[in-house]
């Protein structure tokens, strides 16, 4: 009987900067009760993450416009700010003051609720994105599972807006969006499952910790190459990016479920899809590319320089490097997604469904079982 009863190895990484602890302790020093200090602390990381998400979207939209321009030998936005960096903000402002048109034959309530239901779960998923050991809003135990369950709310919003528009293109687009989303959700969840099995935890912080024992060599992408590819393909399909942007295929369906939308409601869809893209890229970096980990473990570097990892200066540097690394990895993937969008043709709906059900689903099941088998044979290499 090959029962592996080895207890979890002691954490290799230092606890790192804990801003919450310092902040609440400082407030308690002023004579506040721990509960009140906690309540004052709570909104701060949320506001910060929300601003980060929106800035991330602005940067991504600008990148998309510049890279698409480069791919087509144009210049792209250049007047709004240096190199056109303020263009996305100008777009957003324009959409904010645009007239809101609800078609006379549409269902007004569902028409409004649709984009809201698309956006809210996507923003909410940022709850579990870690930028450092303690640099996330809340390290809930179910972590990555929470993201998977939240991402299945989105198709309801898409279906709702497609149906409520009372437009044939919208209806077809909404149905396609829902079908695509459910087809790729299972391979996505199964490839996440293989990672979860290696880190013995659903928490995103534990998943990153497990990968950072030996820097770049211990990243999950080496032990889960198939899972990484499955996850990336499914993430693109869930974000409705080319080559999987069938729900809004311009040539066939005008704009799919967005056809009747204008002004702010259209902007909500737009914002939702870009926040989702950045979120997916961040999660790929968390699940497969070592999250906030530097290619060489910071503990080793500190050791070579003769510094203790617990020294305050080192902790601040470690945390900053962690944030930069997370964002850098995510933006490399965003760049890849944008390049893919402007260089690949769209697949047909039957090809899309075949790829999801007849290829990715059996492959992800096999990947999961192989991971489990390897974990039984080489427990130490696959997370103990």
């Amino acid at each position, binding site marked *: *009987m090959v*029962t592996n*009863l080895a207890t979890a190895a002691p954490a290799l990484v230092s606890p790192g900067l804990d801003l919450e602890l310092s902040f609440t302790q400082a407030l308690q020093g002023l004579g506040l009760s721990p509960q009140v200090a906690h309540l004052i602390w*709570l*909104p701060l*990381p*949320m506001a910060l993450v*929300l601003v980060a998400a929106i800035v991330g979207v602005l940067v991504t939209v600008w990148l998309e416009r510049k890279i698409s321009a480069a791919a087509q030998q144009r210049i792209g936005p250049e007047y709004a700010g240096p190199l056109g960096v303020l263009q996305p903000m100008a777009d957003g402002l324009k959409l*904010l*003051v645009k*007239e*809101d*048109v609800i078609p006379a*034959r*549409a269902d007004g309530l569902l028409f409004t609720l649709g*984009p*809201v239901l698309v956006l*809210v779960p996507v923003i*909410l998923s940022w*709850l579990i994105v870690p930028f450092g050991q303690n640099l996330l809003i*809340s390290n*809930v*135990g179910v972590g990555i*599972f929470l993201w998977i369950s939240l991402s299945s709310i989105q198709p309801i919003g898409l279906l709702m807006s497609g149906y409520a*528009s*009372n*437009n044939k293109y*919208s209806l077809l687009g909404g*149905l396609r969006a*829902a*079908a695509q989303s*459910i*087809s790729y*959700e*299972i391979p996505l*969840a*199964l490839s996440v*499952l293989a990672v*979860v*099995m290696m880190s*013995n935890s*659903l928490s995103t912080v534990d998943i990153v910790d497990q990968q950072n024992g030996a820097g770049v060599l211990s990243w999950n992408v080496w032990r889960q190459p198939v899972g990484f590819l499955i996850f990336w393909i499914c993430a693109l399909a869930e974000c409705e990016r080319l080559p999987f942007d069938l729900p809004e295929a311009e040539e066939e369906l*005008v704009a799919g479920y967005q*056809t*009747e939308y204008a002004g*702010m409601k259209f902007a*909500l869809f737009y914002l939702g899809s870009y926040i989702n893209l950045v979120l997916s890229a961040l999660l790929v970096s968390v699940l497969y590319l070592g999250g906030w980990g530097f290619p060489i473990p910071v503990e080793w570097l500190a050791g070579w320089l003769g510094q203790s990892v617990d020294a305050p200066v080192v902790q601040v540097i470690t945390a900053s490097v962690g944030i930069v690394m997370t964002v850098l990895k995510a933006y490399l993937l965003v760049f890849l997604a944008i390049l893919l969008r402007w260089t690949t043709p769209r697949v047909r*709906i*039957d090809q899309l*469904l075949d790829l999801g*059900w*007849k290829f990715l689903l*059996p492959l992800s*099941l096999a990947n*999961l*079982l192989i991971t*489990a088998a390897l974990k*039984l044979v080489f*427990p130490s290499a696959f*997370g103990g």
Partner: protein
Amino acid sequence: MFVLPGYDAFLGFLLIATAVPVLALVTNKLVAPRSRAGERQLTYESGMEPMGGAWIQFNIRYYMFALVFVIFDVETVFLYPWAVAFHRLGLLAFIEALIFIAILVVALAYAWRKGALEWS
């Protein structure tokens, strides 16, 4: 107040995340010009007068996929606790999961054979 740690942040962030679209829509309502009635309220149909509505009886080809999806989604949810506790369960759990997945692969093969995974 909260049985599980960390979920007070979830509730708070849910409120903040809901406030974003609500605030955006309310601001839009306040600053945007009023809609004039008339042709702009017609649904778009490639520039023609719309022929009837979209709320009709209509063959949704994706419902078979939705049915298969439910099966596999439930399967995935069942596999999550198995994966998290796998390091403590060992070989027996692996064989059990193998049987479980094999049954579902048979179901997938059946659906495939019956043409449930064909689009046309």
